[in-house]
């Protein structure tokens, strides 16, 4: 890579860092400072805390909650001081009630950082405030796993309602020209992220057609509704097991005549997958093939959200259990480098696709911004996405610098959100996490150096 670009990346990264809110509220510090630091430093304790967070929604009383907490903590060798104190507390009924209440409160506090509201009504205030601060949103509906057809129907129905309500709610928001158009055209305010695994109980890795067809049956009406409403639907990506079905369902539906000219749709590309480059070429080939005669691709163009991927541990464990080679890069720098290569490929492919780069890694984000500018792109032609609760400071910094930012905002109750929460917490305490490195005092130069 040329040194000019590296210099730009460093400069943009420092500008962003300088634009972080004054009192750095790093999520790792503030989520629950003590607990998270302890967890990040002790694998057993981390396991105990995750297992506890995971079971909270299934506990029926404070006593039950406290019993679970101490049950998990008992399995930690040589527990640190606060833990032994908690265990002593659990010796009496009153102590358990106090401990249970404290723990439930702690979990709820953490969950509220990541989950923007229980319902869209609850969330409408925070979403509007985000918009006013300069950040658009994508709403994600949390839910239990879909294992039956009625569950899939109900998720689809919630998505349809959300599309409609969000369109109505966002219509009343003030104008924010920087968030509402790029050089290709207008960008919908209402943006909903949808999970294929929630749209069908038939998603099976060895028979992707089955889930693809069943999900398409429920996704098609959602896309048609989005087209009528002028809303954007983003299809999330999950574990590698479902990737073929997810890519298949989206590209298949967008090939149907009635969906060729809308709505605005997005897909996700996971840079930690070794073959993500091939998937990108598949998506680009589709975009080319579905081009209008002018060769400008679909209008509105397919958006590609580039992420690193949130199922790294799952992919590795699954591959090891089966004796397969892992579909993901095992070293983080490899996946960071691939992220940058895919960023460049994506930005070079405009206007065939719209590009969203989703990362909390200052380096990855600065690289995207720098490359976009270096190749003559306007800032508004690059969307940066962050996660609610983890990327709040970056979001504010990006908005402050006039860059186009969108925040992924989960909505749902604690029970529904727990799997999401646990995944976020895992990221947050992983030794490879950028945020952990940032909180741990790694220098800015180091954070911004090429992976």
């Amino acid at each position, binding site marked *: 890579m040329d040194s000019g670009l590296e210099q730009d990346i460093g400069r943009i990264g420092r500008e962003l860092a300088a634009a972080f809110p004054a009192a750095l509220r790093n999520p790792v510090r503030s989520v629950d400072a003590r607990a998270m630091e302890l967890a990040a430093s002790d694998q057993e304790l981390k396991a105990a805390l995750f297992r506890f967070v*995971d*079971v909270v929604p299934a506990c029926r009383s404070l006593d039950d909650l406290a019993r*679970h907490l101490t049950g998990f903590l008992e399995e930690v060798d040589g527990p640190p001081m606060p833990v032994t104190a908690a265990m002593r507390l659990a010796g009496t009924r009153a102590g358990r009630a106090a401990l249970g209440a404290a723990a439930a409160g702690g979990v709820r506090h953490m969950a509220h950082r990541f989950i923007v509201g229980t319902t869209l009504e609850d969330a409408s205030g925070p979403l509007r405030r985000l918009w006013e601060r300069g950040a658009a949103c994508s709403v994600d509906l949390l839910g239990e*796993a879909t294992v039956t057809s009625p*569950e899939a129907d109900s998720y689809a129905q919630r998505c349809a309602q959300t599309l409609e309500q969000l369109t109505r709610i966002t219509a009343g928001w003030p104008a924010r020209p920087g968030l509402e158009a790029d050089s290709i055209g207008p960008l919908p305010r209402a943006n909903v992220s949808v999970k294929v695994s929630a749209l069908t109980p038939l998603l099976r890795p060895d028979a992707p057609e089955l889930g693809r067809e069943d999900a398409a049956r429920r996704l098609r009406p959602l896309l048609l509704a989005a087209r009528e409403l002028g809303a954007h639907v983003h299809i999330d990506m999950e574990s590698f097991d479902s990737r073929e079905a997810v890519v298949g369902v989206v590209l298949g539906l967008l090939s149907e005549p009635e969906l060729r000219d809308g709505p605005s749709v997005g897909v996700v590309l996971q840079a930690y997958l070794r073959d993500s480059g091939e998937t990108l070429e598949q998506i680009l080939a589709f975009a080319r093939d579905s081009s209008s005669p002018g060769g400008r691709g679909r209008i509105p163009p397919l958006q590609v959200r580039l992420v690193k991927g949130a199922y790294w541990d799952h992919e590795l464990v699954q591959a090891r259990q089966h004796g397969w080679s892992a579909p993901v890069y095992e070293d983080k720098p490899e996946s960071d480098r691939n992220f940058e290569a895919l960023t460049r490929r994506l930005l070079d492919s405009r206007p065939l696709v719209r590009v969203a780069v989703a990362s909390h890694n200052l380096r990855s984000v600065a690289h995207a911004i720098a490359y976009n500018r270096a190749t003559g792109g306007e800032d508004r032609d690059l969307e940066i996405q962050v996660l609610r609760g983890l990327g709040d400071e970056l979001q504010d910094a990006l908005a402050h610098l006039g860059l186009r930012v969108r925040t992924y905002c989960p909505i749902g109750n604690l029970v529904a959100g727990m799997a999401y929460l646990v995944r976020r917490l895992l990221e947050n305490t992983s030794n490879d996490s950028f945020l952990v490195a940032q909180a741990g005092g790694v220098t800015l130069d180091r954070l911004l150096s090429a992976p």
Partner: protein
Amino acid sequence: MSAFANEPILELRRASVRSGLADALAQLDARLPLEVPLLIGADRVASGSRATLVSTDPGLPAREVARAPEATAADVDAAVRAAAQAARTWSREDAGLRAGILRSAAAWMREHRLELSALVLRECAKPWPEADADVCEAIDFLEYYAAGAVALAEPRPLAQVPGEHNELRYVARGVCAVIAPWNFPLAIACGMTAAALATGSAVVLKPAEQSPGCAGALARALAAGGLPPGALSLLPGAGEVGAALVRHPGVHTIAFTGSQAVGLEIIRAAAEVVPGQNHLKRVVAELGGKNCVIVAADADLDEAVPAIVSSAFAYAGQKCSAAARVLAHEAIAEALAERLAGATRVLVVGQAQELATQVPPLIEADAQDRLRSCGEQADREGHVLVAADDVPAVGWFAAPVVVADLPGGSSLLEREIFGPLLTVERVRDVEAACDIVDALPFALTGGLFARDPGTVRYVRGRTPVGNLYVNRGITGAVVARQPFGGNRLSGNGTKAGGPDYLLQFVEPRVVSENTMRHGLAI
């Protein structure tokens, strides 16, 4: 020697891996029906006046898969004599040499992996993932027992004092009769056979009458690996062939996997010393189960539901490890039953070769009749949540049934059904669930979904089952990772694919030598 590693199952989530399957099946289909030999020692016996045993595709009964001459009582006698003869030299071979032959047989299976999976699929209607797992397990057994037998050939450490030398060695028992089931037509036949061969016994294999083709493939693999002719005899046939084998005075060990009724009969018959028999027979019996899954109030139902459904209905429930009874804590029983029913309704019933299929046809017409009458009984006695409605007309199909509220004492709660029927019961708490499990005569597999470590400890401490699975499905034991076998009336406690299994096929001999000569300790 490298450490044992399981044979990786096919990564069917990749389209490139899936794309080879249809071809493999077409190639097999073009060769059907396969001719399976009757092997007596080194001889391939001409069918002569013998009847022909024919296996058919359970999904298309008009399709013949394999044909074999049916063994007679005289064949049984000849095979046991030939095996006794062969065992004399085979047992004296170096354990490393025997292991090398088994490993070569494993290598042959790897080379013929898809061909073998296709055969398992056609002959027993196992869908691809299960058929592939069957072949992998067969390979695992060959490798694992090969390594285990080499280790077992080393003398054991004994207490030694000056002036004497003590040595304990394990030696082959002699002739092993292997009586194998059809539900893991390659894996289980191969496992029992490999254990006996690895430790130096000669084997007379009587495969299930439904799966002679897979047994023929096993014989081919072992021959290709270099097994001396004679160390394995193959006697295709029905139950009488097995019964004659069990009673034969020349048989030392009987390795059986199958139903409880047949297993108990074998144990009874083997206990009787017949004229010409100078030893006690040993029986390795892997029998049935009535496997319960306990779901505690704090279970993660998102994980429990798919795991239970696949444990109950994969391969149409025709696994001894399959889930049969769900014991649900009353706090979550209603939600669980509803989600189980919903997840069962979307199961795909279909032909084994379709990758979408989760519930293939049953093995034979009798099984279909049995399941039909179980379905009717469920209807009479309980609240049927998912009914076995229409299924394909051709093939021995039975659709999955989920039934709740059966009265205590219903035979549907007690006997092994060996098909796609799952019962759901509400229990007061985990302790009550354990009481139910404790009252059953079976103790093969069991499941527990719970997140409180205390609950896990409690159930682990109380369960009588041979294999307890916590927060996961209860089928799919993997060699070396989940040594498999049941207790109580589910079996005599042996663990296939475990570190102690080979001990069933050997007898210990101790030699103590006085090393003092005229006051001099050598």
